[in-house]
Each structure stands twice: as structure tokens, then as C-alpha cells.
């Protein structure tokens, strides 16, 4: 599709681990207590420079959700998922927000998250605070 359009984020931001494209601002973190198959994940109200895959229904620890996987626009690597629809009322707050896996992004200082040797083998799950 030719040249990429990247949104420049000013301020402290999380970037894609592989290609260093900034993806989300630190100010937009909603929750840090989410879990994915690779460990920690953060819930963001807004992310940039990602594109979405196909809609899927997934059963998570907090119930059934419709999610789309999101990928970095520059390198195409998977970075997390976005909630499109939550079946349960008390999970509605997640709709429209995105989760970025901590393992797939590097922090605002450039530091990375290293997954412990024994990974959680359960399916993707997320918990609330």
C-alpha cells in the first residue's frame, strides 16, 4: 500500500518492541492489571499506529467479548487486542479500549518486559483491578 502514515505521539509513550513506532501515550493507561498469554498487559483508552484484524468472539476470564486483534502498522507484529463489544454489563467500560501486551511494547524509557520462563499456558485472560 505504499508509504506509511505514522501518527507522532508527543510525550512519554509506549512503542512497538520491534520497530519502535510509538503506539500509545503513558497518560492513556486505564488499567495495568490485565493478563494475556505472555504475561502482563495494560488497558489503554486510545492507541495509534495500529490496524485491526478480524472480529472474533472470545471467552475470557471476565466473560464473553467480541475483540479484534491489533497489529503495528509498520512491522505488522501483533501488539494486543481491542474490545469491540462486551456481553456483560459490568464489562461494558472496556468497549472501544485497547489492550497492549507488555511483552510486545517497550516502555517510555525504552525498557522491555521479559517473560518469565514458566509462561501461563491458559488461554488469553483478563482481570480487573
Amino acid at each position, binding site marked *: *500500500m*505504499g*508509504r*506509511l*502514515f505514522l*501518527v507522532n505521539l508527543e510525550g512519554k509513550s509506549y512503542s512497538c518492541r520491534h520497530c519502535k513506532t510509538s503506539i500509545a501515550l503513558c497518560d492513556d493507561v486505564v488499567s495495568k492489571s490485565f493478563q494475556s498469554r505472555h504475561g502482563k498487559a495494560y488497558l489503554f483508552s486510545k492507541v495509534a499506529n495500529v*490496524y485491526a484484524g478480524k472480529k472474533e468472539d472470545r471467552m475470557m476470564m471476565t466473560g464473553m467479548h467480541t475483540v479484534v486483534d491489533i497489529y503495528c*502498522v509498520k512491522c505488522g507484529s501483533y501488539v494486543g487486542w481491542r474490545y469491540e463489544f462486551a456481553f456483560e454489563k459490568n464489562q461494558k467500560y472496556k468497549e472501544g479500549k485497547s489492550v497492549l501486551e507488555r511483552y510486545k511494547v517497550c516502555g517510555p524509557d525504552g525498557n522491555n518486559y521479559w517473560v518469565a520462563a514458566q509462561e501461563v499456558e491458559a488461554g488469553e485472560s483478563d482481570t480487573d483491578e
Partner: protein
Amino acid sequence: MVMVVGETSMELDQCFQMMMMKMEGVSIKEWKDIPVELLMRILSLVDDRNVIAASGVCCGWRDAISLGLTRLRLSWCNNNMNSLVLSLAPKFIKLQTLILRQDNPQLEDNAVEAIANHCHELQELDLSKSLRLTDRSLYALAHGCPNLTKLNLSACTSFSDKAIAYLTTFCRNLKVLNLCGCVNAVSDYTLEAIGNNCNQMQSLNLGWCEKISDDGVMSLAYGCPDLRTLDLCGCVLITDESVVALADWCVHLRSLGLYYCRNITDRAMYSLAQSGVKNKPGGQWKSSAKKSKFDEEGLRSLNISQCTALTPSAVQAVCDTFPALHTCSGRHSLVMSGCLNLTSVHCACILQAHRSVPHSAH
């Protein structure tokens, strides 16, 4: 003006002597006597901190710089920009361009009021990232600087739409207005005000102003026929109606940004293509000079990244209508990032490359 020591001081004096010899009939005895034009010429080569320092050297230079300084940039200031502006505004009353973009927000309303009270000839003002300013500044600017043509208010999140609308009723000569990120300040009410009052508007940046809808953009298109650059990045409520209105009314449109306007469909693309065809000069007897002028008309840059509802045929139609839109590397101006189904859209150059060289251009 002895700011250097030793040998350099001697060199300066020698330069001064040589200069005096070349200027006959003018009684110049010391540095403080050099003509205003020469002083301003020298100061145009040094950075702004030194210009401010020079204005404090002696009365002659202070008056010369106050009358001659038209351009000033204070973005290097990290801590005291507010007090600096308060002290400089009454001195530099002939300023036409003032750049006050800050890395950390320092500027407050009283400084902008000081500017508005003294610098009535201001044409270009950059107040981007001034997070601490409130509507008071805009009201002051409306009354004090009616000659504004370029105004940058991006990332100033504390303004309201009423204040910006008020500003437009006084600053009718605005040509370039940057409201990127001013979420609360830009609503359909603001756009109607701009369309009513600022009919010379050429470049408007409404990035991330997610409240605006088709009504606002349509009144903008109707009121600003000279619009050349419009950025609607992140304005998620925009639909095809806006693009159709722009295609109909803004014949000089050169650059359009629709990043993340996910409601945009092929209808918008076809309306752009049709407007491009409609505005072509008719007749086959146009001279080659006029033909090259036409190549500069029409869209030069279009950003439809993440507009995933578009199909290749519609976008290709736009690409074919506007010869200045390119997908080839080096002149890339049709940006379709994130639209995975548009990989087959190419500008004419790529096809030529295919024909001449037997390998793929990408």
C-alpha cells in the same frame, strides 16, 4: 559594545574602521551609530537571545530594534517565557511574526494580553502547546491583533468554541489556522463561524477535533472557497457528505487528510474524482504552458489511512484524475496506510516503470 576581549576586540575595531571608510558622508563614530538597516541586517543573522540582549545595549539600539524587529521566536525559553514576553511586548511593537511554542507550558493570559495591547501589526502568531491559556487570551487577541493571517493554537486544550468564534469575527484576514488537538474548542459552531467570517481561509488543521460533524464541514466548505489544505485527521464523525461538499465548493483544494475517518466510502472518492474532471480547462487548443499549469491544479496530497471501507476502483479513479497524486516512492502523496485491500492502487509512474524495466517497482 565590548563583549569580547583581546585580539578579537582588535579585529572588530579593524572591521569597524574599514566599514567607516566605505560609508562616506555619514558620521559614524562608534558601534552605537551604525544605521538601523545595517543593525537589523546583522541581527537577522544571530539567534533571538542575542537580539534581545542587543536591544538592551544602549538607547539608540533599543529604539532601532523596537522599530525594526519584525520577527521573534522565544521557544528556547524553558522557565521564564511568561515574564520575558511581559517585558518585551511593550518594546517590540512592530512585530509581525511571533513564535511562542513551548516545550513546557509557561505562557499565561496576561502575557498574551500584553502582546495584544502592544503588537497591533502582528500577522503570524504561534501559541502552540500553551496549555495554560484560557479564553481571555483569545478575546484579547480579537481586539488587539485584527491583522492576524496565521494563527497556530494547536494543543491548547483550554479554549472554548465561543471564544474562537469570537476571534473569527474580528480577525477576518486569517489564512492559516491550526486547531489541531483543540478538542473542546472546535465544534460545528466554530466551523460555521469560520465559514461566515474568514472567507480567505486557505489552510485549516482540525486534527483530532472529534466533535465536528458534516454540518460544520459543509458550512466551512461553503464559506471558504479558497480552501487549499484541510486536515480532518481523527474526526471520526465525518461522512461522505463532508467530502462531497468540499469537492463541490473548494475548487482549489490541494491537500486533504482523512486519517481514521472510517465512515468514508467510495462515494466520497467518486465525488473528488468528478470534481477534478469538472474543473479541468476545456478545449483542445490550450497551449502547453497552460497545460503545465493545470498539472499543478487539483489534489496533490490525500491521506485516507485506515479508511477501510474504500475499494480499489474508487481510489484508483481519484489517483487517475489527479496527476499530482503519487504512490511511487520519493513522491508519495496518496497515503493509504492500514488499508490492506488497496494495495493494487498505483499512480501512472509505477506503470511506466513496469513497462520500461522488467522487474516490479515495489
